């Protein structure tokens, strides 16, 4: 079964076999419709219709048979439920197989699981439809050639494969959260697709803490979507956002998902840690109430799990907020020799901010100017140059 196209058919075949035949209009033309549960519903409908017919035939005096039928229906429901869940999981793991490029994984996941058409995917990613269609065809061929089995990985394989699935879902979310292409900075529909996939995954593999961690992270981040855009579509930074516009329902769901991740025990994974950081902001009713010490500790844990200069920079900011600018600057100074951050505008921008807070205006001015020369965003550049000018005038 090395072919996704075939696998899709076979997955549908399982149902067909269970029911002997589909009503002609009932065959889902988009496998993604599974997500909506329509395939299952149609199957049950068909069964019920058939049962009603049978019942009519045997209506009188067959109580015993009636009970038996009820039992049969319950068994059938359970069996279908298991099959659907299983097929869905196999499809997710196959679509997100590491043998595929990231782009291919994203396209295949949105097509097969999100139920999006190639045209919808193309519009979401601002590429020609033919490109997406080709990506999907090639991905299916790659899976076939690599003889990727259509199955849910077990044992040691599971962790690596699951992290590939979570990565794809989070990539989709992030493209929606801060679009890398196009005029609009956010694409809420992609966030919704990713959230829905995440929520479904959480039900399919409820014992995997990181799935709940990812869902928690996405719910909490999505809660800020409408506060992240200013009146003319410009980004509004977290601490400047109007918290009244945060979606309390999503925050509530995010905190609940985080709690599920924590209750599964063990150390928190990278998604759960990021969710826990996001939760610190979500719980604070004003920026001043933010628990920066906890955020700094969580970044510390995250840096140990997934060491990265960007995580360190974030930790430096948290340290500065928790223990004063000098504490943050100490860590930032270490990072200035980090080659991967050499042209990362946020490093001089953060350093400038900390220096200004310490009244070291001349050094701060140099950093802000350097940051301004590195950023690609015009709005950001203007802001940084304004801060540089303020430093030149001796005020932060």
């Amino acid at each position, binding site marked *: 079964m090395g072919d996704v196209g075939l696998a899709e058919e076979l997955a549908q075949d399982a149902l067909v076999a269970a029911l002997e035949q589909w009503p002609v209009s009932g065959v889902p033309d988009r496998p993604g419709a599974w997500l*909506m549960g329509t395939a299952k519903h149609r199957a049950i409908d068909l069964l019920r219709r058939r049962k009603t017919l049978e019942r009519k035939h045997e209506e009188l005096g067959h109580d015993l048979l009636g009970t038996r039928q009820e039992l049969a229906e319950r068994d059938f429901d359970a069996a279908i439920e298991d099959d659907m869940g299983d097929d869905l999981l196999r499809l997710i793991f196959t679509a997100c197989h590491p043998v595929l490029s990231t782009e291919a994984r994203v396209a295949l996941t949105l097509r097969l699981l999100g139920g999006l058409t190639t045209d919808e995917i193309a519009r979401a990613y601002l590429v020609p439809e033919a490109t997406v269609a080709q990506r999907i065809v090639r991905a299916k061929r790659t899976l076939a050639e690599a003889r990727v089995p259509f199955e849910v990985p077990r044992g040691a394989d599971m962790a690596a494969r699951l992290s590939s699935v979570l990565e794809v879902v989070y990539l989709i979310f992030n493209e929606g959260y801060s679009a890398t292409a196009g005029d609009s900075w956010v694409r809420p529909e992609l966030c919704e697709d990713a*959230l829905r*996939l995440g929520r*479904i995954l959480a*039900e399919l593999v409820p014992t995997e803490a990181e799935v709940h961690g990812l869902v928690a992270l996405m719910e909490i981040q999505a809660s800020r979507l409408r506060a992240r855009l200013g009146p003319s579509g410009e980004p*509004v930074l977290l601490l400047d956002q109007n918290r009244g516009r945060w979606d309390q329902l999503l925050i509530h769901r995010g905190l609940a998902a985080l709690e599920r991740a924590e209750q599964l025990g063990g150390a928190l994974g990278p998604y759960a840690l990021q969710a826990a950081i996001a939760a610190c902001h979500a719980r604070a009713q004003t920026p001043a109430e933010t628990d920066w010490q906890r955020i700094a500790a969580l970044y510390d844990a995250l840096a140990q799990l997934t060491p990265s200069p960007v995580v360190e920079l974030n930790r430096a900011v948290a340290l500065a907020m928790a223990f004063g600018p000098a504490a943050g600057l100490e860590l930032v100074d270490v990072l200035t020799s980090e080659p991967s951050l050499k042209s990362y505008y946020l490093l001089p921008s953060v350093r400038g901010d900390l220096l200004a807070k310490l009244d070291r205006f001349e050094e701060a001015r140099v950093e802000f100017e350097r940051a301004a020369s590195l950023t690609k965003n015009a709005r950001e550049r203007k802001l940084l140059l304004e801060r540089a000018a303020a430093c030149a005038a001796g005020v932060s």
Partner: protein
Amino acid sequence: MRFLILVKASKDSEAGVLPDEKLFTEMGQFNEQLVKAGVLLVAEGLQPSSKGARVKFSGAKRTVIDGPFAETKELIAGFWLWEVKSREEAIEWAKRIPNPTGEDGVVEIRQVYEAGDLGEAYTRAQAAVKA
């Protein structure tokens, strides 16, 4: 997109008659399906209007009127908040809401406004709040 699904009240819901075991079971299963499909955000049942009240506005005047309220069919007995891909999907799910007793009833489907639907006045107001 989000939809609010409003279940209209019935004589029973207004009398505070609780659903029987069968309805609880079927509703539970239906909600479980909604969760598995990533659709369900909120599901709540409402107590009879006799336990509620209305606050009537007339100019600067506010009048409190205690329940119950007479026009049963206009009242609401429960609601869901769903996240779906389309109005069609919301309707498709709504058709699946269990109704084991076979009683007549109405469920109303209403789309929730998103920030992008609210127009310029909203954007300006939000800018003013921030400033």
